[in-house]
């Protein structure tokens, strides 16, 4: 009963936690949307410009894949988010708050998502693309109606994995001003030795990730007719 009492009387939980939770959702939501908006086309371009692809373009492929995607992916997120503070200020006017944190979250996660998209698109049998071309499809129609439609289960799984990654990254982003559950756990758990708050945060994070994974798996299975 002591623990329950503590749960409902601790201001860290009754006051700070709902705000922190909302901030985390905000960070994951905003960056999730931008990751899809940027990463999906990027993944498609990586796939179609590859040798033997729909529109082979070795240079575009090398620059996008080899340089941008691989370099960004090799910089640890903790370093990337710090180094992006000037850019964030330029884009959103501040480097504090969930919106500002979404800038580095997006940039840090887009290459990861784009690679996952590319991998799922690679699973689509070339015969299907040939069939669509012989039926008179334009390349854009092939991308929309064949590549993306056929890879949908894989794409949903890729998005799920990316959102889970974003939850983790958002906790790190919280430390340098993003707020959210990461910040809460740090403030209360690390600076004030408030174990209750820290444990609660952990539980909420675990539940959030489980929920994302559960919904993602369900949707992925729903769109899978193979």
């Amino acid at each position, binding site marked *: 009963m002591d623990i329950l009492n503590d749960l409902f009387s601790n201001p860290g939980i009754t006051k700070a936690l709902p705000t922190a939770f909302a901030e985390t959702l905000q960070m994951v939501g905003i960056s999730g949307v931008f990751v899809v908006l940027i990463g999906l086309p990027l993944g498609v371009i990586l796939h179609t410009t590859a040798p033997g692809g729909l529109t082979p373009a070795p240079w575009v492929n090398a620059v996008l894949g080899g340089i941008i995607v691989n370099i960004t992916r090799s910089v640890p997120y903790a370093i990337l988010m710090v180094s992006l503070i000037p850019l964030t200020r330029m884009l959103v006017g501040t480097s504090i708050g969930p919106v500002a944190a979404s800038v580095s979250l997006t940039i840090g996660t887009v290459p990861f998502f784009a690679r996952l998209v590319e991998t799922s698109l690679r699973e689509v049998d070339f015969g299907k693309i040939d069939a669509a071309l012989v039926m*008179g499809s334009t390349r854009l129609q092939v991308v929309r109606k064949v590549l993306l439609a056929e890879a949908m289960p894989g794409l949903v799984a890729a998005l799920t994995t990316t959102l889970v990654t974003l939850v983790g990254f958002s906790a790190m982003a919280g430390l340098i001003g993003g707020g959210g559950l990461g910040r809460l756990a740090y403030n209360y758990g690390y600076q004030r030795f408030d174990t209750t708050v820290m444990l609660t945060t952990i539980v909420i994070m675990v539940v959030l990730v489980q929920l994302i994974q559960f919904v993602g798996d369900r949707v992925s299975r729903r769109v899978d007719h*193979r």
Partner: protein
Amino acid sequence: MTAIGARLFGDASIWGNFLSHPQGFLLITVTDLRKVYRQGDRDVVALDGVTLRVPKGSVHGIIGHSGAGKSTLVRCLTLLDRPTSGSVSIGDRELSSVSDAELRRARRRIGMVFQHANLLDSRTTAQNVAFPLELVGTPKQEAARKVAELLKLVGLDRFADAYPSQLSGGQRQRVGIARALATDPDVLLCDEPTSALDPATTEEILDLIKALRDRLGLTVLIITHEMHVVKRACDSVSLLEAGRIVESGRLADVVASPGGRLSMALLPLPGEAPEVLPGGPVLDLLYSGDAAAMPVISGIARRFDTDVNVLAGSVEHLGEAQFAHLRIQLPSSADLAAITAHLTANGIAVTTKEA
């Protein structure tokens, strides 16, 4: 090889027959098609000067072993691969030099059926068949009507809402055929349409293709490695070997050309038929059409008052006509010259092997 190919192609009798076909209008015209692939630092000649003419309304087979260049030929016919040189025309449209937009339009005049159907797993049967209609922005109602009609035509109206994974191989191939027909093409290109199917389903699909040809006046090209498919479905056939067409012609003509590879493959003698035996000349008789209905053996026996020993034989219906390949032995006393002359006069091709 080139010599043989050229000879066969130059052979006026084969093309004479082709061109005098009642609907002699050529729908598929391939001229001196070459395709060279680069494999590492080596050039692979996949097609080495293929010339092909298929008249409107006929079912033409292209048969060849693995690696002969069959798939390459189809890819070049649909311009999925650019030919290295040579030309491809469907109807009166030359495909190898057109713009992308024109090529797309031309491709809609071609329906293509694939070995593994290549249906979209994300779409139901009806949605798969509607795909080509969607590409050109056909109004929903009109598309639905057309899809229903096509599914009925291939006998799948009850499976409109099934996904490909819920269909059998034969059913999937039917969906592929319905989809290929959605844009009312003039030509149906089939690349190994039955190679993934069991014998009974193979018959079904081939019969369907022939029925569709009759009903819709299609011109059909079937690529295959099975002679059985040619026998069952084709009016004419070309043998593709190492990128060249080495024999070609109407089934009736290639079967009746003694010593021809297609003839031997189309009408093989069963088992280990002896080629030479002591005791008298061995004759191979090849006959087709009307001659096949003639009582050949008893005819010789009676007319020349001799025994006839049948060593082996096979009789087949190819298309409308009957064809037979017989190996017989005559006694040494028989008048070989007279018998041969008699048979030849009756339209029977005779090859003699004497002990």
